[in-house]
């Protein structure tokens, strides 16, 4: 198969650096704006839930943080696989950039879930719950990936070994999603990703989706900024970077 000409640009560090730098501010600004609007809408405008009352408002942040964590892991695994198979350093740089973002959002999903669990399930934490355990495993996979990388002095070796861990761990992502259907869980089943109609009225669905969009945009903005940092780190000494670095040349 012949790749279109523009595709080759994605293998060029200066081009990707410039592209990421051009997109990141817009993604970050749009993401933060959507989150601000969605949070206000979810906390103030949206009506209270008939069964859960006010505490259901955590629904505007908890599934979104969990979803970003899962998306970050999937992206990390795909990028790591591409980097491993075709020996593309930029792909490894993408994988490394996704890990800390995914880890912190997954941590946030566990914490907001625990806080939500206390008034609705009567407990913060349940060791036997499949959704909580698979989500905890996701956090441990992110941390394991970062710890494994830190154990190598040689970056190429760190790239290759950590890529294997990232790819193996990706089986956990569908397990998280289907855990509430496959096993008995305290966690409710999916309300949005249903084939028929979402089990949510429009007054709640709109802020929910604004928050999903906001978290997604923010994630990609953060990813591109981290990718830029990774490219600078990996390209240290390259001619294009010397011309770019502020104060490097008179």
């Amino acid at each position, binding site marked *: 198969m012949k790749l279109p000409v523009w595709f080759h640009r994605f293998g060029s560090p200066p081009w990707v650096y410039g592209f990421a730098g051009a997109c990141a501010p817009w993604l*970050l600004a749009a993401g*933060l704006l959507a*989150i601000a609007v969605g*949070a206000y809408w979810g*906390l103030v405008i949206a009506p*209270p839930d008939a069964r859960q*009352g*006010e*505490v259901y*408002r*955590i629904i505007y*942040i*908890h599934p979104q*943080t969990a979803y970003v964590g899962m998306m970050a892991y999937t992206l990390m695994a795909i990028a790591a696989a591409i980097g491993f198979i075709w020996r593309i350093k930029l792909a490894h740089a993408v994988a490394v950039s996704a890990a*800390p*973002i995914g880890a*912190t*959002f997954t*941590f*946030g999903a566990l*914490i*907001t879930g625990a*806080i*939500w669990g*206390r*008034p609705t399930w009567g407990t913060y934490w349940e060791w036997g719950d499949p959704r909580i355990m698979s989500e905890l495993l996701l956090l441990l996979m992110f941390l394991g990936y970062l710890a494994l990388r830190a154990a190598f002095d040689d970056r190429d070796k760190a790239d290759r070994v950590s890529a294997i861990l990232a790819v193996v761990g990706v089986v956990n992502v569908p397990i998280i999603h289907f855990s509430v259907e496959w096993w008995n869980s305290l966690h409710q089943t999916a309300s949005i990703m249903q084939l028929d109609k979402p089990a949510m009225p429009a007054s709640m669905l709109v802020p929910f989706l604004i928050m999903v969009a906001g978290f997604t945009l*923010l994630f990609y903005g*953060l990813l591109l*900024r*981290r990718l*830029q*940092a990774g490219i*600078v*780190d990996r390209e*240290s*000494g390259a001619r294009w*970077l*010397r011309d770019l*670095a*502020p*104060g*490097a*040349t*008179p």
Partner: protein
Amino acid sequence: MGGHGPYVWTAYGITLAILIWNVWSALSLLRRNLRRVAGETAAEEPARRPKVSRMEDD
């Protein structure tokens, strides 16, 4: 918030802290790496830097 205020606000507060940390850490990582590369370039190529006049030193 119908008695659930502490739960809702704590969850939102923690999420906000995670967002702030992410934005701050991504931006500062890029700034730090750019500064380091600039420092390395300056150290490697002293000849390319504008020379300080000897008269000014005195």
